[in-house]
């Protein structure tokens, strides 16, 4: 029972390594953020991922998705019992990776977005499944 609570609700789409071949190339006037959650821990907690207030996907265990944006300044937020925020600036043509980490909270797990190096993110995301943009 506890294991189900801890690990339940994994992403169920195609493997990201397979799906990545069908992702359209980035528009030259835009930037792209890849989001992924590489751990199963706290699987029952799947908050929405918001970019400047817009819900763009969910933080599903072993799930991954991407979101294209105009160059500019952004706040990435996830909320459980608290809101965790990442602020970053994107230039034209940027491709950034945001890992959705899990930490223990008081009542439930917290999910916090962390900007990671591209060489790390581009490898770790391959172990995830494409969970779809929102929304």
């Amino acid at each position, binding site marked *: 029972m506890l294991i189900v609570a801890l690990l339940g609700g994994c992403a169920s789409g195609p493997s990201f390594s397979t799906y990545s071949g069908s992702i359209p190339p980035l528009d030259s006037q835009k930037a792209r953020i890849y989001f992924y959650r590489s751990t199963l821990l706290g699987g029952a907690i799947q908050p929405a991922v918001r970019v400047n207030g817009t819900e763009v996907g969910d933080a599903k265990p072993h799930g991954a998705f991407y979101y294209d944006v105009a160059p500019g*300044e*952004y*706040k990435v937020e996830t909320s459980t*019992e*608290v809101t*965790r*925020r*990442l*602020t*970053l*600036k994107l230039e034209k043509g940027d491709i*950034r990776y945001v890992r959705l980490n899990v930490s223990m*909270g*008081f*009542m439930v797990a*917290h999910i*916090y*977005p*962390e*900007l*990671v*190096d591209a060489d790390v993110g581009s490898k770790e995301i391959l172990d995830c499944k494409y969970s779809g943009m929102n929304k």
Partner: protein
Amino acid sequence: MCAFGFIVSGCMFDVVSVTQKPTAFSAASGTPETFVLRESHSISIGTGFPTRLKAGTKWAMIGSIPEGSVFRSKDQVLTVEASNIHEADLVVDKGAVVGFFLVVEKTFCPAKQREPIEQ
């Protein structure tokens, strides 16, 4: 019960913030000054989440603030972390890291202590 309510109320998890001071950024012009870090460094801002600078990364000056010269690297992402995480640039003064320039907030976050760097 009362104590429980007291404990869980009032953003109890949002207790660690990055220290930020207003500053004025001026963009650099011309060929940027650059350096390559010889060794890795761990810079504390007093939040319990140090920022790591990787050995071998190349840094280019993109501007300045009153606290020092502002450098950015394409070789690693740079963030400062407390309860929230902020993308940042490196601030160097007289051969030492003195803090970070928060890219979105446009504020200065001081290092707990100066960290001399070998370039």
